[in-house]
């Protein structure tokens, strides 16, 4: 027989034990000179392999550990990194003089062999970072501290691309059988997906996927004397998926920094005396695009012709969007309206091309009537199921319906959204585009060049299949023009053409808030990556 009185008292005892042990724990005091930054965001890095996945959560860790030949300063200007200087001895060659006395985290010296090896690893078929060495065919070691890049096609803005090119130790990689990026099909996990060996300001001390990644400051970093250097000696990168929990952890002081506070909480956080918000513009544009290819739209009431091929209809849509209402209501102030498909600060950005059609409903209706749609028509607007795009689509659908274009928003889970667009299975869609290289060429080529199928990257993400020979010609010129002044001129022309043709309809540039405890000082970076070496904890 079971004695229930005993059981009862035992359970009470257990409960008290649990609670009392819990209540008496105090956090262990760290030595005075260690400054630990506890950082949280909703995503965990997928892999630590610097050449395997080109995903932002991964880049957020990799950028602390691995470095490139070039670096960017606080204002995102290109400065020397692992290369001291560079030159173009001829049109097909870039020469890099490497920084001497740089050591990898394991103590091995950094030489030209590592650069040549890293280039080969980046160009490997399994690598997703080939765009970081756009146009480069191979590398040649000249001496221990000199490397030549041989180009297969010209790239006037190679340095902008190279910022993402990460250098890994050759000796380490061959010792640990990690000479190629991760291969998913072989059912093996490579050593380099869980371990790192770079030259950067931090090294990875502990990696527990979905739990935490611990970074420690590299005491032998070549750039430790940098003026931009903060004082953080250790970083705990914690993924916290649930928005409410992440904010609770920040408010309770369990973490110091949140990369992605939910938009609706930002106003409240600003009122909290213990919290600081750092805001900045992300180098990204949210824009609409149209099926301008088909003779009849897939998702519209208009049969026998494509209303979106009529410039007046696209203009009407531009006039119908009240971008300030979107900014205030949907974005809660966290956006800057734009007329340009590249954000300010991008190489080639032109103020002249950054003009929006004003919000004018009457004008919009008049244009529709002129185009032959006095009673309007119906259409489906596709957008991804993440926030804020889903809310933007709802708002814009209502605005377009008011001028007679009866718009139905179709909100698609992200995992399906891109494959839908890649099949051109859309009439009208909202997307965002990051200026990852901080140069206009990549954006123009991917979004506005005529889609040339699978053979080249021209018009790769031009899912509306806009096509204008004049645009293609300009993009071709920009691609190989080394005279920056001339090149900026071509870019400006292309941007103006986009505006005139309404090839795409840019909406706004998002403002990203970072939330942190008052004792943290952080600089916003336009690629939305927190560079921990610049962080200060008081």
């Amino acid at each position, binding site marked *: 027989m079971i004695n229930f009185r005993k059981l009862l008292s035992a359970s009470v005892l257990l409960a008290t034990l649990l609670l009392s042990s819990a209540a008496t724990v105090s956090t262990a005091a760290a030595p005075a000179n260690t400054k630990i930054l506890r950082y949280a965001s909703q995503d965990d890095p*997928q892999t630590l392999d610097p050449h395997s*996945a080109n995903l932002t959560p991964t880049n957020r860790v990799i950028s602390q550990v691995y470095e490139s030949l070039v670096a960017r300063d606080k204002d995102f200007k290109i400065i020397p990194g692992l290369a001291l200087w560079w030159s173009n001895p001829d049109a097909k060659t870039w020469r890099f003089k490497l920084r001497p006395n740089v050591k990898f985290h394991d103590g091995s010296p950094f030489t030209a062999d590592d650069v040549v090896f890293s280039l080969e690893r980046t160009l490997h078929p399994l690598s*997703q970072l080939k765009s970081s060495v756009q146009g480069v065919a191979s590398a040649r070691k000249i001496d221990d501290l000199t490397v030549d890049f041989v180009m297969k096609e010209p790239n006037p803005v190679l340095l902008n691309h190279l910022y993402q090119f990460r250098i890994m130790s050759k000796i380490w990689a061959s010792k640990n059988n990690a000479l190629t990026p991760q291969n998913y099909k072989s059912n093996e996990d490579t050593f380099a997906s869980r371990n790192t060996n770079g030259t950067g300001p931090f090294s990875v001390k502990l990696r527990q996927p979905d739990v935490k990644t611990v970074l420690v400051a590299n005491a032998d970093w070549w750039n430790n004397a940098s003026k931009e250097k903060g004082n953080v000696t250790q970083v705990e990168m914690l993924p916290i998926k649930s928005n*409410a929990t992440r904010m609770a952890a920040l408010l309770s002081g*369990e973490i110091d920094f949140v990369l992605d506070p939910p938009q609706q909480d930002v106003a409240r956080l600003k009122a909290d005396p213990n919290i600081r918000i750092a805001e900045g513009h992300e180098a990204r544009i949210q824009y609409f695009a149209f099926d301008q290819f088909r003779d009849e739209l897939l998702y519209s009431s208009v049969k026998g012709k494509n209303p979106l091929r009529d410039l007046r209809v696209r203009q009407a849509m531009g006039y119908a969007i009240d971008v300030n209402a979107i900014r205030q209501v949907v974005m809660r102030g966290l956006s800057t309206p734009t007329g340009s498909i590249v954000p300010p600060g991008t190489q080639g950005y032109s103020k002249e091309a950054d003009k929006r059609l004003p919000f004018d409903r009457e004008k919009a209706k008049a244009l529709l009537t002129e185009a032959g749609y006095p009673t309007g028509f119906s259409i489906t607007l596709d957008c991804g199921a993440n926030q804020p795009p889903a809310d933007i689509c709802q708002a814009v659908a209502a605005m377009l319906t008011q001028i007679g274009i009866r718009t139905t928003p179709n909100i698609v889970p992200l*995992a*399906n959204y891109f494959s839908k667009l890649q099949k051109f299975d859309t009439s009208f869609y909202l997307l965002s585009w990051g200026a990852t290289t901080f140069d206009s060429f990549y954006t123009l080529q991917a979004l506005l060049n005529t889609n040339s199928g*699978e053979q080249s990257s021209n018009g790769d993400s031009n899912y509306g299949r806009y096509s204008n020979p004049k645009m293609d010609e300009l993009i071709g010129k920009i691609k190989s023009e080394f005279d920056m002044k001339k090149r900026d001129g071509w870019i400006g022309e292309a941007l103006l053409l986009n505006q005139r043709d309404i090839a795409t309809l840019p909406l706004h540039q998002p403002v990203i808030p970072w939330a942190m405890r008052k004792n943290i000082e952080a600089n916003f970076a336009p690629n939305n990556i927190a560079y921990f070496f610049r962080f200060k904890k008081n």
Partner: protein
Amino acid sequence: MLAFAIRRLLQSVLVMLAVGFIAFSLFNFTGDPVALMLPPEATQADRDEVRKSLGLDEPSYVQFAIFVKNGLQGNFGISLRLGRPVSQLLIERLPATLELAMTAALLGLLIGIPMGIFTALKRDSWTSKVFLTGSLIGVSLPNFLIGIFLILIFAVWLGWLPSFGRGDVTQIGYWSTGFLTQSGLKALVLPAITLGFYPVTLIMRLVRAEMLEVLRTDYIKFARARGLTNHAVHFGHALKNTLVPVITITGLQLGGLIAFAIITETVFQWPGMGLLFIQAVQFADIPVMAAYLCLIGFIFVSINLMVDMLYYVVDPRLRVDRATLGGH
């Protein structure tokens, strides 16, 4: 008994295959993992290459056949999100989920049974009424809401307990336990209460109802007539006979706790299998989703099997019935 066990076992295998197949077919609608593995700025050539390297260019029935064949050998492929073998990931996450589910189940038993007895014996006391009303809240409030309330009170306002994570864990062989460190125990409190809320109320109500039922039966009256003490009647006779349904429900609940820890794990960023699954769904990480659903199916099937066997042992009537049936 043996025939019974073998029959149940065969049924279980069929159930497992069905679970696997349905799960796998569903995954074809969760989306294209390649789209999420690459940034929107990637080129078409990049996409094709990755798709091919993942074997996603094969038709889905071929993918399923390969999955079953490899799964039988314990190889569930590589997680597309984390790039590591799925079986290894599940083994790593299993202890966290099991410790949480077991603690919640234990809470259910240790608090639910005494509360059930109390409310059955002292039906009219105000404490019983408070318990019963409280249990209604436990049954009706969604899990994540309880979790967020607890976080707000104990982490944000009072600052006593952590709002997320599992604290420091100690590695014992393959098993990582949070029971041996203070921060581990501290981190366990809120998630275990959140997850245990429902079983506590369920078991309490079950024990109460069964107990009331039993207290009305003739043998209890006879026991009283024999002059036994209240204590002997209540705990020796009445409670013992209420436990049969409690065993079934607790068993099934344990399966449920492991499977539905997903929500609690997400709220508390508890690094268990549920969190792994949720993130796999968002990433369309097919190998992880398939392996997880098969594992959960397996846990349910084996718990059911065990409960059936236990029934057989606990309830002598089942044995008698079967014996007489067999005799005819």
